[in-house]
């Protein structure tokens, strides 16, 4: 998977780069509009992570340019801190595949990238096997154990799905909460909603099989370990 990071802020650039490298992506870098424009023209990427406010140009212009180039089939994800309300609409109109306002979670970025890949390659059903017999279908939003339906609420389902997407990674309550509540501004970061969700998920799943795969990491968060 070949990714071009277009971001002029060096520290952020490095963090995104480090994260993607760890996740086994092939990463290319551009810090300016000119650099990015050249790379997009010459190379072919799977993803371009595009910051809009570049020192020597507008990222939207780069997107427009790239979309006119037939050979460039990269999916564009716009990353911006400008907070301008019509950037999102403009970006999606110009053919961006997704839009993440800064600050964003790297895990969220990764799961968006995975979703785009699934869309792109027409994977209708994305089935995930875990915990010795559970099957989670993200598209149909169903969870089954050996053919039997396991009933979860919307948030419980989203939470479990997110943990499965980031298998073997500790996810903090904040990261999980941010995924569940997205743009809603919550001011009680200490709330225990996530703990209650996890408790309920464990309760529901344990009627079918042990839930050892869903670990609590004390003081930090939760993790789904590779079971099978």
């Amino acid at each position, binding site marked *: 998977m070949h990714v071009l990071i277009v971001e002029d802020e060096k520290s952020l650039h490095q963090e995104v780069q480090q994260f993607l490298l760890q996740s086994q992506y092939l990463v290319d870098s551009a810090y300016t509009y000119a650099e990015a424009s050249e790379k997009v023209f010459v190379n072919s990427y799977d993803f371009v992570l595009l910051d809009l406010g570049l020192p020597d140009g507008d990222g939207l212009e780069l997107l427009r340019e790239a979309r006119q180039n037939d050979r460039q089939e990269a999916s564009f994800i716009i990353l911006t801190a400008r907070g301008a309300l019509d950037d999102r609409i403009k970006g999606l109109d110009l053919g961006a595949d997704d839009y993440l306002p800064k*600050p964003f979670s790297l895990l969220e970025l990764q799961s968006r990238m995975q979703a785009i890949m699934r869309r792109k390659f027409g994977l209708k059903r994305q089935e995930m096997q875990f915990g010795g017999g559970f099957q989670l279908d993200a598209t149909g939003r169903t969870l089954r154990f050996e053919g039997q339906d396991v009933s979860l*609420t919307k948030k419980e389902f989203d939470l479990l799905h997110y943990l499965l997407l980031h298998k073997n990674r500790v996810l903090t309550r904040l*990261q999980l909460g941010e995924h569940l509540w997205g743009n809603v501004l919550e001011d009680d970061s200490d709330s225990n909603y996530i703990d209650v969700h996890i408790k309920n998920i464990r309760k529901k799943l344990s009627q079918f099989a042990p839930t050892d795969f869903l670990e609590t990491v004390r003081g930090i968060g939760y993790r789904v370990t590779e079971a099978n």
Partner: protein
Amino acid sequence: MRLEAKLALFNALSKLLLVLLGAVVIPPVVSRVAVGHTDQRLHEKQAEVMQLIRRNGISAFVKGEAYADYNILKQEYITLTPLPAASEPTGKPRIFDEPRQVDNEIEDFRILSYNFNIDRKEYRLEIGSSLATVELLTDTLRHMALWVLVIGALITIFTDAAFAHYLLRPLRQLIVRKLRGVHHPSAFSYTPLETDTADFQRLDESLNEMMRKIQSAFEKEREFMSNVSHELLTPVSILQSRFENMLQDPELGHAHSLKIVDSQKTLYRLRNTVKTLLLIANIENEQYLRDETVSVATVLAEVTNELEDRLAQREIHLLEDLEPDYVLLRANRTLLFTLLFNLISNAIKYNNWGGSITVLGRPHPEGGYTLSVTDTGPGIAPENLPHLFDRFRRFQKGASAPEGYGLGLPIAKTIAEFHKAQLTVTSEVSKGTTFSLRFR
């Protein structure tokens, strides 16, 4: 009332006044003119008769007795009467109205009476003109004048109205094309108005000029917000990514992991504060559009769907009673969602375990709608109520004042105001709190 209607009304009233004035003034004027005309004719006839007398001699008319003559329809008569000697002096002709009997009929006459002296004898010449004739004439004249006046007035009322309509067309276009339905400078049309009326041209130009200034101020504000946003959120973004990467490091010890999770929380608080301030600033600077038709029930359903787990977790019963639903014609769906989400999320957060929330929607007889969210929580102390919507105000901890209603309420208030709605709160300690949203 529209300008055109006012003009037409004024026009019609002034014409009516003119007609009334005519009705009052014309009759006396006409009768004076008619009388003057009759008198003139009487004088002319007198001169004619006197000429005849001088030519033919008085004896041709008066042979001892008085002479009298009248025409067949008795409209006019002439008498010549010899007078006793020196009874009345010769003088100017007098004209007066008097009844006279002519051929057994009494009629009113306008009479010219003239005493004259010929061959040392006194005579009186009387020439009468029937007043009925005069009145007939004045009536005809009066009617004609009034009709001309009325018809003239009607015609000018219509032509004036038509002209005013034509003349004010640019103004109507200005209102329809440029003012009505323009809620945001970006929706304004700068195409010049087609008119050769200098006043309208100037109005149009000033309007365009003003709108340009407003728009440029908007653009500057937008740019400023965008820059501020960038400057504040970029460092937060860097730290957030860095913490996430650090947590993934397998060599990180548990103690440090805990510190990073803690830092993450601190950063999250900072992030939320910044985002809240930016959101409020953006709403207050009209950077959001209100161009959607939104049903309150639909948004409420979305909100409760998002919050169903939280309701269930605290075993709180939510009662929805919208009778009927309310549809906002000019709203921002995303913001409205945030508003309702904040109200109901607060009602969950500050409720007792197993309590209830009532969402009540009722129309007002005089128009508008009130949506209220009532919880069965511990309530808010009266001294804290006035400051509930203040940004960043913290309350003393206590049973009746949960620490920090946070930024949810200032946001809710700002969004309500953006939708021209009023957000108010009433609360009773240990009974519950009601937030009411009054749409107009």
